């Protein structure tokens, strides 16, 4: 026995010549919300469908609650699922939709009624019990989808891009509602999305996928602060990348100097760094500070020139030319204003500069 509620072991799934899932190993702990995050076509939906049983892996095994379900048909897997397009039964009322999983399980009518009412209360849709799905808004439909998925207390809740058909404001509200519901039920959940903000806000852990493989698994903070590949740093949040070579590492391995062109930039030292080796330095645009050119220098402070400014409301987005080959994107709050062509000082915060080997 292990403490994983869901486990994919060496799961490979091909569609013709395309390898949608390439030896996926993923363990999802009991009560945890795990997000599969990646661009479209990265294989996250394929992995989810391996869990539901809509895809049968070509190789590898799928375990739910410690039991090998690789060859168990979908309807026997005791799952709850929420779909991107809601996938409610259009010919049934809200009540009928939520009741469906209970009816299929042969639960008696009285008990069914109680459970459905309880679920409808949970999503605050009691008044809509006799409406048909087409009479509801997208957000309401998705709440009914949630109730239908949760009403029979499944072992696992699967959510396949549940918010991407909703408008931006509603999406943010529903995020909290889903997280709240999952916390209250104490259920294990797998959440598939391509929206990194959603993943960071919702998840206990995130598995970032790219080209059929998992690139990194970690908490949202780990993923955002120490991405292990250029892909992840690029995909999650904004990043400036600078290519250089490691010129020295401090003896306590707390910091290192990376030489990019003729700039010497101090970075947080990584475990795999070696002097003389190529290194990809990355820093988030909001971890770069701008000062006027009279500002006296410090660590990682270099002169530059403003090339472009984009106004974003709560902050400004600058494109700064550090030298002939180096451009940096910098985001800073609107208080300090610089003009195009102005000479400035740029400080790459040393404890926020990291290296991807």
């Amino acid at each position, binding site marked *: 026995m292990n403490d994983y509620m869901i486990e994919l072991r060496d799961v490979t799934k091909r569609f013709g010549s395309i390898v949608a899932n390439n030896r996926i190993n993923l363990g999802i702990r009991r009560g945890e919300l795990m997000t599969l995050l990646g661009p479209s076509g990265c294989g996250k939906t394929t992995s989810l469908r391996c869990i539901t049983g809509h895809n049968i892996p070509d190789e590898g095994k799928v375990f739910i609650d410690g039991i090998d379900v690789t060859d168990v*048909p*979908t*309807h*026997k897997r005791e799952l709850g*699922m929420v*779909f991107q*397009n809601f996938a409610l039964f259009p010919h049934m009322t809200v009540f009928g939709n939520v009741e469906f*999983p209970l009816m299929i399980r042969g639960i008696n009518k009285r008990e069914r009624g109680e459970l459905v009412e309880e679920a409808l209360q949970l999503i605050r849709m009691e008044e809509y019990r006799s409406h048909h799905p087409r009479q509801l808004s997208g957000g309401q439909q998705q709440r009914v989808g949630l109730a*239908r998925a949760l009403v029979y207390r499944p072992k696992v809740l699967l959510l396949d891009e549940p918010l991407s058909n909703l408008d931006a404001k509603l999406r943010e509200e529903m995020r909290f509602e889903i997280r709240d519901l999952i916390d209250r039920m104490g259920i294990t959940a797998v959440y598939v999305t391509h929206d990194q903000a959603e993943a960071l806000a919702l998840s206990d852990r995130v598995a970032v996928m790219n080209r059929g493989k998992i690139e990194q698994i970690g908490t949202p903070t780990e993923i955002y602060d120490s991405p292990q590949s250029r892909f992840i740093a690029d995909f999650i949040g904004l990043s400036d990348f600078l290519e250089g070579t490691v010129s020295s590492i401090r003896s306590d391995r707390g910091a290192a100097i990376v030489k990019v062109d003729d700039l010497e930039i101090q970075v947080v030292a990584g475990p795999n760094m070696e002097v003389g080796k190529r290194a990809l330095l990355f820093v988030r645009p909001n971890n770069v500070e701008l000062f006027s050119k009279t500002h006296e220098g410090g660590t990682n402070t270099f002169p530059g020139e403003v090339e472009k400014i984009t106004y974003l409301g709560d902050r400004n987005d600058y494109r700064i030319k550090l030298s002939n080959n180096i451009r940096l994107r910098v985001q800073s709050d609107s208080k300090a204003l610089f003009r195009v062509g102005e000479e400035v000082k740029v400080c790459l915060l040393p404890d926020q500069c990291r290296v991807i080997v």
Partner: protein
Amino acid sequence: MNLLRIYVKSILRGRKVLIYTFLLCFGLIIYVPFIMIMLRSVGKNWFGRLWLPPELTLDWYRWAVEVTKIFRITANTLIIAVIAVAISTLIGIPTGWAFGRRKIPGKELLMAMILLPRMIPPIAYALGIAQVFYRLHLVNTHFGVALAHVAICAPYAILVLSATIEGLDERVLEASAVCGANRFKTFFHVILPLILPGILTSIIFTFTASYNEFTLTLMTYGKDTVTLPVRTYLAIGEGYWEVTSAMSIILVIPSIFVLFMIQRQVTPEKLVGGFKGV
């Protein structure tokens, strides 16, 4: 009368005269023969020289009922239609499923082959059907005639049902499986209710096709399986024009009912997936 008033009005206003003239011609072509038959079926001592029959009577209808045993023949027609509809629907659902949801190599060719009996004149293969049926002793049985009708009814059923089934949302079926329903339960609780409008449409089309079918019945009927269209045709040969007219009118009545059903039932969104655009 309404049409006439609109026509006169538009002429007076000098607008759209051409359109209404064409519309009138179209109406005349379609309805004049029908009106002629109607008048003949209730006219007495009318030889076509006058505008309207000099005397009105329902005798010809009585004759039609008594002499031609029209109830028996209507029963034959309906029994055959019901069998043909049942077989066509039972063929149409699985075949429609295969065409609508599966990737089949040579799908277009297969569909063309299925539609072929609808495209070529029935007389061209009715003879072949008759030969086979004589050997199998299917001639002069309701089932035999119905089976011949399936050749032209099933293509309708397959065409309509494959379009309906193609419009089913795959995700809804997946949702049903995740909710714990096996294929059997998914079919009865989800698929069947969703394709019901398509099935009803298919039934209407196949029913009218069988009800109106003449050529194939002519080649496979016997004395116990005479249908309304065939009996009407035979009555023409017997020379009683008035009785034949009365029979024609009787033949038309169920078709008018079906027409109203079609108007209520056959709408594009109902044909394709029933509940699309949820």
